[in-house]
């Protein structure tokens, strides 16, 4: 069954990529190969976690974003901010200032996504009460984790809580509110400022959701630069009315580690960083871990504070957000009333449909063919060196063996085999060189060894 490739926000800039294999080696789903000296991402396996971007030494992997000026094609322009954005700035810049500058950029409304968290908690509690058989409940918060489970842990897909993430609830809320204020649906543009690539992918091709709830996505580092520039230049108009509202502690801490797990009763665990999550899910899948009620799983270290588009050091961002969360300010009454009005509507529209497993692991849909392929892999493994050097353009010998069996690579890509075959005069030195050149590109050999 061939599934349509998913939208991915991570892109390799070909003329910047030096084909160095760093990204290939850190990818948790083994989605990257080096071909002709350039990293190539397999769309079916990529979960948009951003590990490759973090590992790239030359910034050749970027998060593609929508053109900012597209916001002006809407009369009502709503900016949905993630709370981690406010953790990016030094203490002396106030939340009010940040709001004002974002408004000056051209938005008519500025809201924080996590204002709607209380509703999601209410919805989640109800969901857990109604579906006791789906225990342990896995949060749908982190889109990279949802995709990771789809591709690597298909048997756990049904444990994912089938409720919208908070950004979608907020988007629905503001759209409905503006419509009730008399605006047409197509006049309203809702833009999410994202701290990560996975959220972009989730917005562009949502999982378990039929319609797009958000009109565009803007990268958080872009907004950060604009705000810093404006404040440093002192060009911010002091008269801009900011509609800044203080959020509850629960809302501010929601996107940080333990933000969700601390909200539910019984045994709840919070795990961050994708390799930690994989190790845990492996055990959970074997039922080596049982008797857990709720799992908050996030791909980045320190959750969204460690998102690939955050600019501040993640520990400092967490510190600032914690300070903000613990300010003794009561949630504004106005906010509460506003949400009360829309509570039934939002709770009724919170469900998402079934999340489909789309395993990347199976060698073939036919088990007999898969078995044949596995036998071939075992044979190939006997002749590969097993040192996982990556010089063939695949992250591990085992991965190369699988690629060979799947017709995506050749035995001779292995440099050890090339040497053996050359020695035994089965291929000429020129042929061996040509093979290496097709993996690493022509320029690589000129640049490094001859000119250097």
């Amino acid at each position, binding site marked *: 069954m061939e599934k349509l490739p998913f939208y991915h926000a991570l892109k390799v800039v070909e003329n910047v990529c030096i084909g160095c294999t760093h990204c290939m080696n850190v990818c948790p789903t083994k989605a990257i190969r080096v071909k002709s000296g350039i990293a190539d991402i397999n769309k079916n396996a990529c979960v948009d976690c951003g590990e490759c971007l973090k590992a790239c030494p030359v910034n050749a992997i970027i998060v593609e974003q929508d053109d900012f000026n597209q916001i002006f094609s809407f009369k009502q322009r709503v900016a949905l901010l993630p709370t981690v954005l406010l953790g990016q700035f030094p203490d002396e810049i106030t939340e009010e200032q940040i709001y004002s500058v974002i408004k000056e950029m051209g938005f008519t409304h500025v809201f924080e996504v996590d204002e709607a968290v209380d509703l999601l908690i209410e919805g989640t509690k109800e969901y857990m009460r109604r579906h006791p058989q789906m225990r342990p409940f896995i949060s749908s918060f982190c889109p990279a984790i949802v995709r990771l489970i789809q591709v690597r842990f*298909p048997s756990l897909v049904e444990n994912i809580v089938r409720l919208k993430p908070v950004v979608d609830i907020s988007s629905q809320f503001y759209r409905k509110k503006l419509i009730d204020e008399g605006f047409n649906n197509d006049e309203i543009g809702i833009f999410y400022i994202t701290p990560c690539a996975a959220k972009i992918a989730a917005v562009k091709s949502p999982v378990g959701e039929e319609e797009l709830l958000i009109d565009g996505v803007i990268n958080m580092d872009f907004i950060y630069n604009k705000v810093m520039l404006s404040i440093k230049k002192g060009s911010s108009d002091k008269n801009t009315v900011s509609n800044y509202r203080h959020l509850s502690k629960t809302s501010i801490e929601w996107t940080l580690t333990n933000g969700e797990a601390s909200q539910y009763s019984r045994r709840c665990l919070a795990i961050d960083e994708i390799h930690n999550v994989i190790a845990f899910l492996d055990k959970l899948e074997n039922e080596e871990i049982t008797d857990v009620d709720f799992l908050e799983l996030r791909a980045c270290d320190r959750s969204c504070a460690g998102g690939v588009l955050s600019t501040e050091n993640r520990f400092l961002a967490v510190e600032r957000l914690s300070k903000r969360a613990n300010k003794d300010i009561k949630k504004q009454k106005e906010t509460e009333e506003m949400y009360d009005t829309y509570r039934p509507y939002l709770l009724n529209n919170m469900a998402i449909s079934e999340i489909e*497993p789309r395993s990347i692991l199976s060698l073939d849909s036919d088990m007999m063919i*898969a078995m044949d392929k596995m036998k071939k892999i075992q044979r190939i493994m006997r002749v590969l060196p097993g040192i996982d050097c990556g010089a063939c353009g695949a992250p591990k010998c085992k991965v190369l063996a699988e690629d060979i069996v799947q017709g995506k690579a050749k035995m001779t890509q292995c440099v050890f085999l090339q040497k053996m075959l050359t020695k035994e005069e089965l291929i000429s030195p020129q042929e061996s060189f040509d093979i290496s050149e097709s993996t690493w590109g022509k320029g690589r050999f000129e640049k490094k060894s001859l000119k250097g």
Partner: protein
Amino acid sequence: MDFKFDIEGGNFSNAGTASSDVKKVLKKLNVDPKLIKRIVVSIYEAEVNVVAHAYEGEMNVSIFPDKIIVRIVDKGPGIADIELAMQKGYSTASPEVREMGFGAGMGLPNIKKNTNELNIKSTVGVGTEVELINYLN
């Protein structure tokens, strides 16, 4: 198609590695995720049994077009009364083993619940052979 994995008696820190390796193989073979889960849950129980009770053992997996057979063979004390061992809550595990969270007496009953066919052969003082058969569809 056959696979063999070794199990080390008494080494709880490694308990589960053989089951995890089998899981990886079954995923590659496109076995239904629900069946994989049932098989892995039951062979994990059997693997822990070897770790908890025996000196050493091995897990042999044979995959056929219509069924998957897992044989867990160990050298160990054996089971004196298999029928008794099949009862929920019955356990001969030492207090140390129980302290580590194992030995609740649910092993064999859990295996039975998750398998189409379960055969146990055992000789006291020699060892035990547990055979799990699961049919594909």
